[in-house]
Each structure stands twice: as C-alpha cells, then as structure tokens.
C-alpha cells in the first residue's frame, strides 16, 4: 500500500498561507486512500502557481505550456487509456488561455480528471484579473475595476453536458478529498473547480470571504438533473454551493474509438509487414 511518504516531492515555492497547500495535502491523502502508486498516474499541467503542483509530489509529469494542458492530457489518454490522467490548471490557464480546449475536451468526454485551482486571479504574474475575477475588482492592470462579466465554469460545463461538474474549497479538505476521489472514480471527463485563496494578490476572495459563503450540497440534492444543476450552477454571491453539481453517464471518448477497444495504443506493436500490401494499392 502506498503511504504519504511515497508522494513527497520538491519543497513548494508557494507563498506561506496559499490555498494551494491545502489542495496538495488533500490530493496526497486522496491518492493514498485510493491506493494509487506514483507511477500509476500522470499529472499534466500548464503554467502558473497551480501548474507547479506535480513537482511538489511524486508522479509521472508533463508540465507543459500555459493554457495547453488539456490537449497534452488528451494525447496521453488516447495513447494509453490504462493510465490515470490528471490535469491541474489555474483559472487563467484553463478558462482564459486554454478556454477553447476546455470546451472541446468536455465535448469529447476524454477520461481526464481536471482540477482547476481557482483563485480568481493571475497569481504567478502578480495579480492581474482572471476570467473568474469578480466584476469591479481593482488590480494594477484593471485600474477601473474588472469590466467583463465573471466567467462561470460550472454553468459553462453543465451547459455542455460535461459528465462530472463539481466545486470544492481549499479550506474544506475533508469535503475536497471526497470530491477528488469521486472524480477519479468517475468514468469520463471531470471538472472540479477548487476555490483557492491567493493570499498575496486576491484581497477580495479571502479564506474568510469564502468561509462565509460556501455551503455543501446536501443529500437531498439530485446531481443528475441537468436543469436543476444548471440552476444550482448559477448560484454565486452570498451563497456558493460546493459539491457535485452535475454528473451523467455519457460514454467516454476512448470507449468509442474502435482502434483501442482491446488494447491501449501504446501496447499495440507496429506490424511492418503490412506495408508491402499497402504499397500494392498504388498500382
């Protein structure tokens, strides 16, 4: 059985008090409880504070470009769907720079577990507005306050019939751990947006701010009703729901590719003897 020690990585370079620490700790706990070994999964990430995540634990890692983690994760999953593929992104990374990929990865329903560390700000580049920054938030780069409407990843995902849509909070680790485990055990693409306080640059959405607002979806909430889920996804402000907002049982992408029905692509040997026959087709 794997233990927490198996997952120790580089010492994080995050600011003391950063919400990312809570997520990292929770992720390791979840991995241990899931019985995952470091070589059994790959974390793909982009660029940002959140994207440094895989270096701070131990696992297969492809730390790629800002905004481009989902296509890389897609390529890995299609080449080897026996590998658990996890994508860790920032809100700018995933909802801004890589927004187009998010839309299409949801459509494909590739079996990727996406965790967005949503601090509603650009952390690594020191405090510019992100797509999830709230309207009116003043930053050095938005001196008149954020003018665009806040992006709602939950409503977006439900609208696209994403197969698993959830929101967690870095300050509620037990609940977050449950979400991580549910996501890993779900078949298909999963989006978990994690409210993550950035103590250095986001002075609006603090631990306190979130704590006063978040509430857990109860047992009476039916996460399989898409219309109700959409309504739930629209909630933001005085009350912010956390939990599994929506889930469905769509077939995942890999199941629909006949070529990899029996064997992951990476384990299919290349048969060079076929080439002779193909050559004849040109006569």
């Amino acid at each position, binding site marked *: 059985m794997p233990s927490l020690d198996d997952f120790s990585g580089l010492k994080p370079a995050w600011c003391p008090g950063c919400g990312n620490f809570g997520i990292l700790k929770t992720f390791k706990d979840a991995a241990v409880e899931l019985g995952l070994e470091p070589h059994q999964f*790959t974390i793909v990430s982009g660029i940002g504070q959140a994207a440094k995540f895989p*270096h701070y634990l131990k696992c297969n*890692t492809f730390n*790629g470009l800002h905004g481009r983690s989902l296509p890389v994760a897609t*390529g890995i999953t299609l080449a080897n769907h026996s*590998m658990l593929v996890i994508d860790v992104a920032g809100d700018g990374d995933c909802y801004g720079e890589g927004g187009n990929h998010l*839309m299409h990865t949801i459509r494909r329903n590739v079996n990727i577990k996406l965790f967005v560390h949503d601090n509603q700000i650009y952390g690594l580049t020191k405090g510019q507005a992100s797509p999830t920054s709230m309207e009116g938030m003043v930053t050095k780069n938005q001196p008149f306050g954020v003018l665009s409407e806040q992006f709602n990843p939950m409503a977006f995902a439900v609208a696209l019939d994403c197969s698993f849509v959830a929101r967690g909070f870095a300050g509620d680790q037990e609940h977050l751990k449950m979400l991580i485990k549910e996501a890993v055990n779900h078949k298909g693409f999963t989006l978990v947006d994690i409210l993550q306080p950035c103590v250095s640059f986001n002075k609006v959405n603090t631990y306190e701010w979130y704590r006063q607002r978040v509430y857990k979806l109860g047992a009476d909430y039916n996460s399989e009703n898409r219309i109700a889920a959409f309504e739930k996804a629209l909630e933001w402000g005085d009350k912010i729901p956390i939990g599994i907002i929506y889930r469905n049982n769509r077939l995942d992408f890999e199941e629909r590719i006949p*070529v990899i029905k029996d064997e992951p*692509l990476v384990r299919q040997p290349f048969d060079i003897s076929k080439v002779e026959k193909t050559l004849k087709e040109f006569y």
Partner: protein
Amino acid sequence: MLLPKSIILINYISFRMQCEMNPAKNCDIINFMDYSIKIGGEAGQGIQTIGDTLSLVFSRSGYHVFTHQDYESRIRGGHNYYQVRVSGNPVMAPKEAIDIIVALDAKSIELDTPKLTGIGQIIYDSSALKQRHDGAQFLDIPFTALALEHGGSKIMANTVATGAVLGMLGIGLDVLLGIIKDTFKKKGEEIIKANSSAAMAGHDYAVKQCIKCAFSAAVEGKPKMLIAGNDAIGFGAVASGCKFYSAYPMTPATSIMLYVASKAKEYGIIVEQAEDEIAAINMALGASFAGVRAMTGSSGGGFALMVEGLSLAAMTETPLVIALAQRPGPATGLPTKTEQADLNFALYTSHGEFPRVIFAPGTPEQAFFLTNKAFELSEKYQIPVLILTDQYLADSQWTFDGFDLTKLKYNDYRLRGEAFSSLAEYKRHAFTESGVTPMAVPGDAKHVVVTDSDEHDEEGHLTEDIDLTLKMADKRLFKKMPQIRAEMEPPALYGNANPDIVLVGWGSTCGVIKETVDALSKTKNIAMLHFSEIYPLPSTKKFNYLGLLKNAKTTICIELNATSQFARLLRTEAGYTFNRLVNKYDGRPFTVEELTGEINALIG
C-alpha cells in the same frame, strides 16, 4: 572531386541522345511518346475523375506519368484544371504545350487553345458549351448525348470523355474497363455495363471522327505505381509506425491526415481532428510522451499557431514529426496555390535555441523515405523534425517502378516494459555522453517519468540553477547537433559531374529542374544540385558540393519565392553566394518550357 555512384542519379540523357543521333535505333516506339493532356472546367464537373482515371490507365499500362492540378478555393464553379503528362520516358514536371485539351467549359478553350502543340486537339461537347468551333484542331464530341444513349445517364459523360482520349491516343480499352469494374464493383453489374458502354462509345467516336489525330502510343509495359506527394508522406508515416496523428484541416496539408485516417483501422492509428492547431501539436506531444510515434501537420497559418508547441517539443525532448505544407502567404494567401516561401519560417520559428531537422522532398518517393527518416531521427534524437511540402508536390502524381521497402527503418528507441522496469533508477533528462537520454514509457515501471517546459534538472523538475541551465542547453543543442548533422545526406547531383553551369533547387522543383537540365545538356555542360535534406546543412565530407559550386562558372539558385530563402541559407551557413537567382512567386509552379527559357535568358 570524388563522387560516389549513389549520389549521381542514373540519367537517361545519354540514352535519349543516342537515339536521336542514331536513326537506326527505334526511338519513336519507346521514346517519343510524350503527351500532355489537360482537362479544364468548373469545380464539380468531374475534372478530377477524368484526370485520375486517365492517369491510372496510363500507369497501369506501364507508361510514365506526371500529373498536377490547379484549382480554386471553391467547391463549385470557377475554372480548374488537371494536367496529365504521359510518356515512354520518365517525366517529372508539367509542360506548357498541350496535346489534348478536354474542355468542359468555354474558359478552357479560351485559355488553352494558344498552348496547343502542332498536332494538338481540343475535344468538347458543343451542346454542353453552347458554342461551336470549326478549326482543324477542334473535335466536337457529344459527351452527354453519347452518355445518355449508351450509358443511360448523363453522369457518364465523363466516362465518354475518358474513353475518347484513349481512342485519340490509340490506346485500347482493356485497362479502363478493368478500372470501371473495380470502381463500381459494389454498385452491381448494371452500372458496370452502362459505364463500360459509355467508355466504348467515346472511344469509338474518337477513333472514327478524329481524322487529324496523329498520336501514337508507346508499347505498353509492366504496371507502374502512381502516387501523389502528400499520399507519400501519409504512407511514409503509416509505414514508419506512426500511431497518432492530430491536426486541424488546412489545404494543402489536409490530404496527409486523410491518407492516415484511411489507414487508421488497418494499422491501428488514432487520427484526431483537433479544435485548433495549438491543440493538434500539444495532443501529438502528449501521445508521444505516452510512448507512441506521433505526427501533426498544417500549412503556414496553422503552423504559426503551433510555434509555441514546437519549442515545447524541443524543451521536453519529445519526438515529433510535423508536415508543413506550404501555400503562398502572407496570412491566408492563396489557399490552393503553390510556393516555397516558408523555409525561413521553418528554419527560424520558435523562441529559444534548439536543434531541429528540416526535410524538403522533391518527389513522392523522397517524400515517402524522408518521412520515414523524419520518424527515425526524431525518435533517435528526441527532436522535432519538419517535412516541407507544398500544394504542387502535395497534389502531383508520379509513376515509379516501386519503392524499395527494404530501405525502411524502424528502430524502437523507447524504454518499454522489462527494459525500463529493470533499471535501478530513472531520470528522464539524465546527462549522457550523447546528450540523448533514453525515453521511458510512463507506467511501464515503478519509476516516474517527469518532464517540464520550464528549464529542468535531470529528473525533469523545474530549476533556475546556473550550472544546470548551461548543461541542459548544451545537452539539447551542442551534444546532439553534430550527430544530427552527420545523419544528413548531401544534395543529389544530376547531369555532368564537372559542370560549368549548376542549377540548384530544393524541394518540389526537383523534377522541373531535372528536365531543364535534360533540355539544355545537348549544348551546355550543365548539372542540377538538388537539396532535399535542408537543415542542418549536410556536411561536405561525403560529397563536396560546395567545391562543385565553387568550380562552376555559373551557379543559379531556383526558388518559388521572392527572396531566395535557400540561397540566403547557403550564404549564412556555408558562406557561399550564387552568381544568379531565379525567383517565381505568382503561386504557380514552373513548367519545363518556362524554366528552360529563364535559364537560357540568363546564360545566353
């Protein structure tokens, strides 16, 4: 200067000259069939069907064929053409002069009549074009009426036209009837019979009515293979064990993806149409990282979007093959026309410094084998390799006696299964003598595989350490580069081994330059030097091509671009400056007559 035989292409000039100087030799039967047939009309009229069918009849009859196409960026209307050159000798470029015009629209007659050869004929259907032409070179064939009468449907007008062309050339119908049988196998006997009758009707009509026809076909031979440039790249990828191809459609690169997709089931390949080119290259990198051979492709605009991904391949040392199918730019440019203006882009694009390889095949055969070499080198050195093609090469078909498949290379450089799990430890970017760290398949062992687009340490974790930064840059660049250069084959020399005049080209102009050398070599000491392995510039150890250039009196660099990008590369990398430059940048390829004329004008 020493010239190994392997790089002197077998030339047939001497054979031709012997024939011409020796009337006793029976040249006219095997040699002097060299006809160009141009099918012109609107998009959607079936130009492609007639052209493809004729080419197939010719290649299966053992003739040498060269075809090229000119089309507009539209699905219906406009004016397109398909030109087929058929000969008893190898042909590898288009001619300006046309022997048979199949005019499916009036524009064809208007544009191409001046290009007719002395024995040239135009066939057309006066009822379809609603015009009549009386000259001796016109032959009015009622394609539609014959199709209705003999095939029962006017869709078969194209079959009538195809049969008619064969009739004019004095070529029998056996091969065509065989093709019809194959094509319509699924549609049943009725359709086969109808099409066959239509073909025969066209053939008969031409044989009887084309009194002026003076064509004579050469003796038929063993069937030849017929293949287009982009199909050859796609086939090369499939034959190299490519398992993953992700791209976004863009002419003229799309046909590579289509070819690979057509083989997906048989070979077990995943072809994914990405949401954009950024996704395409990143998906391919993900697949490659996971352990399979991966490729992507686009034209200039799409490749522009891949640029950051290209440097990601370099930084993470992830093998990747990229086809860059050039079209005239800037921006959207001329989507369906041809140009060689993206060499600089391929050479210098992307931030940072890293090794890359650039190939520019001149023929479909080279395209096939260079694609194979692209995979071999990208896997061996864990680098991006670019294959430059263009609309002209993409769509041109050539005949070959076959490809020597024993020349295909397939070496699996990845650490898989046992080979990986038996290691005591593993660091994805460990320093090695060669600069290459064996690449392991994640999941095949307890060791983890870590890589990063940030500068990283040997394990793959991000670092800002001074020493590591230097050592990693050296590993990627200086350790690998000399080995990569040593893999590059020198340019091919064609013609005289000690020439006074050297015509230099790269990529798809190979055929037309070769034929220009043929045309001029009767009176001039001339040769072609053709580069298909462009970067890193091959060393002169195997063949001192720079010496050859320096010893020549006139050296002319011929490029389908405005700024002589290859000439500049040779000056930058080898300090060599050409005497003369020939540039063409109107989006159209050179014809033999046009280039011969240009060269004559330069050398007097």
